[in-house]
């Protein structure tokens, strides 16, 4: 918590930050990340489903996407593949409450840059994002 408070990225709110897309079917989680990342200077868009995320992607691009695996009807891994197909340069971080070996392997195969286990430790999330974009 101290390290969060000392995060230098918080001071760059005036400058348009890097565009981050967060996809999760949990509305409160989306709110948390939106609030947390916006406070740290990122331009955050949220989507409650994979379909919604793909719709958003029609209109604009993102430098980073944080996506949950377990969603319906399209799941996170399918979305990951689609995202990487449309925008190969976009960095994708996969988050899941079920960090099975298969899920981790598939994520990397499909082009995920990082893998986080839910509940996500915000400090760890911050470090991951900073290392990617």
């Amino acid at each position, binding site marked *: 918590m101290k390290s969060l*408070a000392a995060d230098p990225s918080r001071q760059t709110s005036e400058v348009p930050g890097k565009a981050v897309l967060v996809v999760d079917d949990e509305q409160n989680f989306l709110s948390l*990340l939106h609030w947390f990342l916006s406070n740290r200077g990122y331009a955050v868009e949220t989507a409650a489903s994979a379909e919604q995320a793909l719709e958003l992607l029609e209109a604009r691009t993102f430098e980073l996407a944080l996506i949950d695996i377990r969603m319906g009807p399209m799941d996170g891994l399918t979305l990951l593949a689609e995202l990487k197909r449309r925008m190969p340069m976009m960095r994708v971080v996969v988050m899941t409450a079920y960090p099975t070996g298969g899920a981790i392997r598939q994520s990397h195969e499909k082009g995920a840059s990082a893998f986080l286990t839910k509940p996500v430790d915000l400090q760890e999330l911050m470090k991951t994002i900073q290392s990617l974009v």
Partner: protein
Amino acid sequence: MAPAFVSALGPPTLRTHLVKLIFIGLAPLIIFSAILIVLFARQEQVTLTLGLQETTRALSAAVEKEFQANITVLEALASLEALDAGTVQEFSRSAWRVLNGQPNWAGVALFDTTGRPLLANTKPGVSLAALDRGTLDQVVQHKRPSVGGFSGGLDGRVQISVPVVRENKVIHVLTAALGRDVFAAILMRQKLPADWIGTIIDDRRVVVARTLAPEVSVGQPAGPLLQQVPGGEKIFTGKTREGIFSYAAVSTLPYFGWSVALIVPATQVSGLLWRSLASIIGAAVLCCLAGFWLASRFARGLADPIRKLSESAKALGEGRLNETPPALAIVELNDVSHNLQRAAELLREQSRLRDRIEAELRDRDEFLERQAQLLRNNEEVLRRQAGELEQQLLASGRLVAVGELTASMAHEFNNPLGIILGFAQGLLAEMDPADANFHHVQIIAEEARRCEKLVQELLEFGRPRKAEFTELDVKPIVEKTLDLISNRAAKSRVGTSVSVADDLPRVRADMQQIQQMLLNLSLNAIDAMPQGGQLTLGAAKNGSSGIMLIVADTGAGIGSEMLPRIFQPFYTANKRRGLGLGLPICNRIAKAHGGSISVESQPNRGTTFRIHLPINADGDVSATAEQPE
């Protein structure tokens, strides 16, 4: 050398046997010879006695012939006509003539029928004896010639009388006196062997002539031997006058009663027998001595190889199997030697076989001992596991419920908790610590974190992650654990230290699970030291095939009544700290690695947990241990 015939001291020696053999061979020969000799000697004796008898008979015939010759001369003289007329002077002249013509005659005498002398013509120095009664009866009554007894010593005489018959009537008795030389001459003529004694005795058993010592015997009664002379012809034994035991052959003249005897010393008759027997005995003794000597020499010759053989057999008996039996000069012994050699080879082979079998048995014993040890260990493990199973069974009611609960709900808690915690953390980062609500948000974050931890525990316990074994070095894990807990430790004023052995081998293990165990134990340790203390993390070798991780605190310790239960699920000392699943999870992880956890605790002194891990955990033992070269 041992005495040959001392059989009481043990079985007889070879020499004894050989000597016996020689004796057994000689004995029939000796006995046969002895029998032959005895038979031969008997035959000789018979021949001798027959000869003796023959000679005696010849001698007595000679004596009788002498008598007859003299009687014939006397009868011729008695028939002279001069006696018809009874003119003694005329007859005397005729008598002188005859007397001078007979050198053996000592005198001639004429008696009337009553025994009165009518005429006595004698050679010088000779006197004639009167007629005795017996002679007179014989001659006058029976009209037969008579030979009187011998009288006198060496110059003694024998008187022979014949009747002078005229017209069948005895008118005178005519007597001639014979010197004893006649009889000595008869004996001399026979030319007897030197040691034979010829004797002539008259009808009164007075010696008339004798070849041996006549000067002391003639005219004397016969010696003890001839005193027993019977009539007729006979051979008998007895002692002579000189005391010599002798054989005597006697022949008695039937009419005159005189006897002739030939005496042979018994030594001469049986001497041959004794000499022959002595020769035989001497020869036998010589043979025996020679046999004894030969037997000894042969025995030595035989005994030498036998002794060598015996030494070989002894060596064999004492297990000296490498000595080669000697080659011997006797075929049979050589065979024995060969057989001994074969026996030695056989024994050597058997000895080798025995050694091998013994070695195998020893190996098998060791193997069985190890197996038994393993079985004992297994038994102990099984007993322990049975106890644990029993304890787990007690908790299983709760376990099943928890398992289901965690499966369905833990994740559902996770996300809301994450969100709550996220906002709380975010808020805390935004808020001024002086704000009145800052502490309240802190509490929200804290409780959310505690919930998160409980959910994590439930998740771990209810649905353990599948272990992924890799070969790893535990040192970084220990150090990382220390990093992870350093904040908490500092907050509780707990000092930390690490002690990892340098030569620690790498182990096959799941890194995350090892990390979790160390973390669980370390957090427990910090919780056990609310007033501060010292936490030590360590790692060391555990024998040659394992390592040991150590987590030691200096806290309150665990009561001995609680110790057996701390690995049971849901057993917890402090409800606020957790569900009581931390140690059961550690226990399960350790077992999944083929290891174990032990605990040692002293109240108010502290607690030490030791995690024993094998170098090759079960999961991949076969892949590492049995890789072909």
